[in-house]
Each structure stands twice: as C-alpha cells, then as structure tokens.
C-alpha cells in the first residue's frame, strides 16, 4: 500500500463520500419520522398533504440540478476542463431521478386535491419540459459518435435548454391564464403550522444532502471512467 493509487475515488475522498451518504441516510430516516409521525395531518386535504414534504424539496432540488448542469456545461465549453463536464453529467443523471420523483409525487397529490393528475400551469409545464431536456441531454451523450463530441453536444443541449426556461414559464403562464384559477393546493395555502414548517425545512436539508451525496457518487464514477480511459489511451 505504499504506491499511490491512481484512482481519485479511493482513500480520503472515498471515505468522505461514504460519510456523506451515511449522513444522508440518517437524515432520510429522521425526515420520515417527522413527515409521518411529527407533522400534524392537514385539515382539508388530509393524509395526502404529507406528500408536500417530499414534493416541494424534490422539485426545488430538481431545478437546482438543472442550474448546476447548465453552469457546468457553460464552464466546460469555455474552460475545456473535464471536471465541469463531470459535474454537469452527474447533475443531469441525478436530476432525471429527482424530476421523475417530483412529477410522480405531484401527480399523486394533484389527483385527490385538484381532481386531475396534471395541471399545465407554468410550474408544471416547466418541470415537464426540463425533464424532457435532461432526457435529451442523456440521449445525446449515449448516441454521439465519440465521447468528446458527446460532451460538447450535451453541453450545448443543456445551455439551449436553460435559455428556454423563461420562455416556457411565460408562455405557459399566459396560456394557463385562459383556464380557471385553482382554488386549493400549495399556491393557495395560508400560513403553515409550526410543526409543518419545521418538517418542511428539515425535508429541504435532507433532500439537498441526499442530492449532494448522489452527485458526489456519480461524479466519482465519471472520474474513474475518465481515468481508465486515459490509462487505456496511454497503454495503446
């Protein structure tokens, strides 16, 4: 064990990631208790309102993942440092999972409360569009003729996707203006109970830590892949 391991994920960095993952696991357990045991049941929506503590943090983390992917993509194209591409790629992969969860929890919550699975308001439309753009991002990488072009083209996809955000939001908002306003749901809620607010804040922290842990995992995996590719090129 005297020679330095070329892999960047073993040793100190690996232990650090494992620690983050463990912290995320513990936080998730505590969060489950808070959501199902501590927070009071909401009066008008009932038990289904507990989805709120998943849905809201997950959707905000999804948007965060898109922002990270866009920033990583811009920096990759400008600086040509693979680290930025790894960050963008990891964000897209974890982002797809978070967007999917946000869409599913949103639909399951909307059905009993609004009596419809989906509302094409600005937020719903934007969520769906960004989810599709992330899928496109991953497809471009998968189908590109070589890894180098995959990295560049997916970066372009993320940048163009980010630029469309304000337009999708505005267009859907104006378009949705033709439909009746919704009267219940998160937008129409009054002030939250103390216990509810606490649970929500804890949920935010939990999902951000979980997100960070997953990004760190994927990032490390990509680092290993890049290292292997370099070794293979050097050997050839």
């Amino acid at each position, binding site marked *: 064990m005297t020679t330095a391991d070329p892999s960047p994920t073993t040793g100190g960095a690996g232990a650090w990631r494992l620690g983050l993952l463990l912290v995320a696991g513990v936080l998730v357990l505590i969060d489950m208790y808070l959501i199902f045991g501590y927070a009071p049941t909401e009066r008008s929506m009932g038990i289904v309102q507990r989805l709120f503590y998943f849905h809201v943090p997950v959707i905000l983390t999804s948007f965060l993942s898109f922002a990270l992917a866009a920033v990583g993509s811009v920096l990759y*194209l400008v600086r040509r440092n693979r680290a930025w591409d790894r960050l963008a790629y990891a964000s897209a992969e974890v982002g797809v999972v978070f967007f999917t969860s946000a869409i599913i929890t949103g639909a399951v919550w909307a059905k009993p409360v609004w009596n419809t699975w989906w509302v094409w308001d600005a937020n719903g439309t934007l969520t769906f569009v960004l989810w599709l753009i992330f899928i496109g991002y991953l*497809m471009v990488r998968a189908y590109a003729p070589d890894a180098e072009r995959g990295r560049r*083209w997916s970066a*372009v996809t993320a940048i*163009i996707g980010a*630029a469309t955000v304000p*337009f999708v939001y505005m*267009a859907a908002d104006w378009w949705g203006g033709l439909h009746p306003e919704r009267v219940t749901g998160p937008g129409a809620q009054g002030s939250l109970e103390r216990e509810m607010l606490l649970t929500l804040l804890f949920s935010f922290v939990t999902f951000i830590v979980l997100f960070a842990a997953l990004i760190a995992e994927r990032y490390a995996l990509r680092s290993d892949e890049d290292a292997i590719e370099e070794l293979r090129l050097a050997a050839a």
Partner: protein
Amino acid sequence: MRETLRAALTIYAKDVRLELRTRETLFSVLAFALVVAFIFTFAFEPSPQLIASIGPGIVWVAYIFTAVLGMNRTFLLEHERGTLDGLRLAPVPREALYLGKLLSVVTLLVTVEALMLPAFLVLYDLSLFNVWFIAIAVAATVGIAAVGTLFSAIAVHTRAREVLLPILFLPVALPLLIGAVTGSREALDGEGWSGMGGWLQLIVAFDIVFLVLSSLVFEYVLEE
C-alpha cells in the same frame, strides 16, 4: 461582419440553386405536410365550430412536424454527400455556416407553409390569409429554424438521428408552439394586435435570444 454575411449568402445561394435543380426536399416535405393535414380530417371529423377552436392547433402541429422532417432531410443530404465536412473546412467564420443553413431552412419552411395555405382552405375551410397570422407564422418559423438548425447539426451525426431531433427540438420549441397556436387563434378571431401582440412579442424575443445563442454555440457543434 460583412465577410460573415457574404459567406452566409454564398452558402444560402448554393442551397437554393441545388434545391431549384433537384426539387428533392421541397416536394417530399410538402407531400408530408399534406398527409399530416389530411390525416387530421379523419382524426377529428371537423365541423365549422370545431375548426374555430382546433384549427390553429392542426395547422401548427402540421407545420412543426413538417419542420422536423424538413430540417432532418436537409442535413441528412448534406451529411451523406459530405457537404458538411466540406463546409467545415471552408475558411469562413462558423457563424456564417450557421447563418447560411438557417436562411436555407427558413426559406424551405416558409415556402412549404405558404403552399399549405390553400390546402388548409380546401380541407378545413380555414382561411389563413390574414396579415397577423402571416406575421406570427414567419416569426415562429424563424424561431423554429434558429433552434432546429443547431439541433439538426447535432442529430445528423448521431446513431439515432430521426428520433433525436424531435426529442431535443420539441421541448425547447414549446414556447413557440404555444405562442403560435394561441396567437394564430386570436389573429383568426379578428382580434388584431390587442389579442396577439403579446404572443408576437414573445415569439420575436425567442427568435432574438436563440439566433444569438445558437450562432455562438454552433462552433462547438461542428468542431471535430
């Protein structure tokens, strides 16, 4: 700047001359647009009241699907003949390549859209000869081409080109589709500027943002 423009116009003139001699792309794309419009007749059994509400939607779904096919086709032919590689070697700014291809795509799409106007009149009794509709259609087509040209250049080099272009292009173009459909409906209802002005502004803003952004990132797409 002038050099870029001249190079772009040269590429554009090449595309137009090629198309005028072969008429390959225009007629195949136009035939596709007709088939889409014709299929909708049987999908909806349209009555005059129904057409008043879904007419603009039919028109724009036909236009946007045709655009996807047309852009795929244009770049596929270039790819197969090695024209894109030739263009890449040309000592001209990358923006000139983008601009030239963009002009070709806009010309193709606007021509098909114009030739489809009588078809919509006959099939649906839907008269689109309206100044505001035409303004919306041209503005939206520029936006479609601005995003589509960039994504076609990516998709054509991948293994899944027919699938990849719509998957990349349609979500980004959603604001255009919403604006074009709603704006067209307002225009056809005789609302004029007060009804569709906001939508036209949104579409033009989209055009400007994506023309600038796409021409900036186009070099990263072409780079070998």
